[in-house]
């Protein structure tokens, strides 16, 4: 494949055919796989979504804050722990 043709694919100017994609993947030592997983809504996600939407928008914003703070605390604890092990 020519460099200008490859550049067009990289920039999204042209859409490659499946067999072209296969050749490109092979050149990168990769296999191309087309999968079609089911578009299922996880029942637990659905239940959580319903639960979230029962809260007022302001309560949802508070929940985002609380969950985010918990994540940041865990990140900081992980970092401290890694530093302690490294030291």
């Amino acid at each position, binding site marked *: 494949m020519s460099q200008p043709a490859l550049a067009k694919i990289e920039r999204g100017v042209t859409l490659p055919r499946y067999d072209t994609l296969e050749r490109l993947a092979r050149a990168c030592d990769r296999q191309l796989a087309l999968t079609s997983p089911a578009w299922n*809504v*996880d029942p637990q*996600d659905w239940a959580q*979504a*319903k639960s979230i*939407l029962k809260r007022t*928008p302001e309560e949802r*914003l508070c929940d985002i*804050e609380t969950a985010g703070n918990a994540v940041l605390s865990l990140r900081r604890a992980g970092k401290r722990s890694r530093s302690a092990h490294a030291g």
Partner: protein
Amino acid sequence: MPRASLAVLCRHKVDFVCIGGVAAIMNGANHVTVDLDVCPETSRANLNRLSAALTTLDARIRVDGIEEGLEFAHDGESLSRARTWNLLTNAGDLDLCFLPDGTDGYADIVRDAWPVDVEGETALVASLAVVVRSKRAANRQKDLQALPVLEALLKEREKSD
């Protein structure tokens, strides 16, 4: 954290719509997010107000490997020169995106955005339809994971309308 950043933007009378993970959660997604993505209106006056808000937030450019971020001088004019800004602020990470995936920017998103009260001020949140459209277009793994439930919520809402 997102609420503190939202409050500062609101206090500075910045016109913007909240997008990204916070908007997804506000519309029912069960993510956890620690940053705030917003799509600002792009008039020079608004970007000047945004610049003032960023000064209050002590915004710096977010860079891998530099924990405190990079200081940068900004005003309305300079902010308009990039499509996105990934920032670190004293209230957490803040991403400015003038043209979110799958949208035509602020004017497109604000049409059906909905309000939320933030410390007595009103912030706008992107609608579920816009969140779904943008996540479909972004097509990243994390977006695709959130899509089934958001699309199901959207379908349910469209049926009931």
